[in-house]
């Protein structure tokens, strides 16, 4: 087990049940750890518990039992407001359907997490948002409404939004699932580059074996359990990628 410094995420014996009366157990005692700077793929068939695990790790939901430790912070005893603050500070989300806010520009979407947490958008936040947009190849489209962008560009904005507030962990739920092959490759390459150059930790849920193969680590989940030992693969950081 990695020490607290190196570990971004530690999931310990996490169980998740749904329903009252007739209870359905979706996760059966998950143990998982992600080291700082990892790029890991979480794969498994539909209904295996991927999204449930992602929601728990992203602090969007709470486990029935077990504990989740994020950047050394045990989240079990936090109240809703503390959870919201921690989520905003430590986690970045990339969703399959980008889920950008259509009423806002690319820059405004990217600055949103910091803006929502601080209550004010400083000039520094806006400048940084433009920098991150430039890093994902959208330097010239900062003032464009997101509805004016292509699907691939929108997903790049979503990645920029996930990164702009410098989170400890980025959770990507089928980030390429809604893109054509060329755009999917572009977007994934971007994530890999950011992982390599910035050291950002990624946990990517995907159905795409091609994408999973290019991650530093693959975690298999089936019927709510981590089922296979992790496949040996070059680590993203320091590895050939």
């Amino acid at each position: 087990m990695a020490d607290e410094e190196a570990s971004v995420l530690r999931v310990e014996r996490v169980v998740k049940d749904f329903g009252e009366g007739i209870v359905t157990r979706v996760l059966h005692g998950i143990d998982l750890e992600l080291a700082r700077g990892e790029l890991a793929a979480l794969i498994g068939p539909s209904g295996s518990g991927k999204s449930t695990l992602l929601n728990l790790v992203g602090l969007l939901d709470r486990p029935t039992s077990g504990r989740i430790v994020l950047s050394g912070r045990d989240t079990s005893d936090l109240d809703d407001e503390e959870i919201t603050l921690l989520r905003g500070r430590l986690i970045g989300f990339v969703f399959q359907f980008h889920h950008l806010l259509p009423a806002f520009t690319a820059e405004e979407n990217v600055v949103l997490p910091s803006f929502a947490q601080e209550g004010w958008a400083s000039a520094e936040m806006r400048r940084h948002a433009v920098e991150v947009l430039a890093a994902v190849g959208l330097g010239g489209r900062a003032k464009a409404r997101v509805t004016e962008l292509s699907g691939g560009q929108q997903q790049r904005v979503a990645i920029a939004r996930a990164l702009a507030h410098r989170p400890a962990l980025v959770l990507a739920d089928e980030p390429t699932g809604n893109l054509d092959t060329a755009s999917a490759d572009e977007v994934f390459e971007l994530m890999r580059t950011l992982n390599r150059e910035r050291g950002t930790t990624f946990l990517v849920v995907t159905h795409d074996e091609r994408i999973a193969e290019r991650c530093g680590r693959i975690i298999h989940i089936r019927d709510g359990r981590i089922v296979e030992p992790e496949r040996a693969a070059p680590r993203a950081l320091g590895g050939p990628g």
Partner: protein
Amino acid sequence: MPFEWFVAIRYLRDSRAQTVLILAAVSIGVSVIVFLSALIGGLQASLLKRTLDTQPHVTLAPEELVARPLLRENVRAAVTIERSPQRLQSIHRWRTLLDQVERVRGVVAASPTVTGAAFASRGVAQRPVVVRAIDPERFVAVVDVRSRVTRGRYRLTGNDVLIGKGLAELLGSQVGDKVRVSTGDGREALVIVRGVFDLGNESIDERWIFVPLRIGQTLFDMPGGASTIELRVGEVFEAERIGVELADLTGLEADSWMKINEQLLVGLRSQESSKLMIQVFVVIAVALGIASVLIVSVVQKSREIGILRAVGSSSGRVLRIFLIQGGVLGLLGSIVGSALGAAFSLFFERLATGPDGSPTFPVDLSPELFVGASALAIGIGLVSALLPARRASRLDPATAIRNG
């Protein structure tokens, strides 16, 4: 700009059609409230002014004479007590009482008067009149007769008198003419018309005659006396309360304009109730409009709300985003509605005028009306946004993102 304001205003701008529609509804609601309040307030103010321009707010007079049977103890008798004939009485120690009542909180002016019935004659013309003997400087602060003098001057010294416009026509008198005033018991005075007044009340203008207090005291055999003390109060609707207080203080009988004009007050209260009922229904309609639009907005934007929550917006921030939308709709609606209501009121006021050029439907567009209407609209906006705002703030982010 704070986060909540930024998002709220962007949402309102983004849903332009919805925003314009609900803004129109709020504006129309506010304009109806402003218009109705201005019209009814104007009518009430006009009615009150017409009533109070010609009469004191409170009149103090000695208690009526009451006949009492003189029976010895242990003697029983069946008696019928008839109302004794009333004669004009002077108020005992009226100067002391005048000083006392002037010091009572709420009283702004007080004047002694002698008021009685008489005949005014000029040549063959003779008319029954009400003699109002006054101290001219004090009385003008109670009822502003000076501004109603249309011919001659407001001057009451020596044998001067002021007569009503109607009486001047009936007697054929001009300013400077002599008129004889006589009472039923044979006392009379030869007086000179110094001015003709028009109090806007035909009955009063045909019957009233103002004379100096001294002439009234002579005519009604009341040397140095005063039959009434007439008062003006600061707040007209306090007149009855102040009247009761003065009656307790002086032992005199107090009649307020509110007691004398009870039917007018009933009418005013009915108008007020009708206005209130209409306002309540308008407020309900506006509140339902704002609430329904914001509820639809919460449903439409539930995924976005989920995203906002996921990226770190607290439930309090989400609550405020929707409250601000309600408040802004109320504020903008109140501005547009106030302008519309004022324009419509002024247009309506100019539609019909009386023979003297005064509006038939005067409107009362006071600053308080606009402040009140705006506060009401913003309040409605906030209250009606509360339900959708709470709903938005309680959305589970994971569910909202998945199902939104």
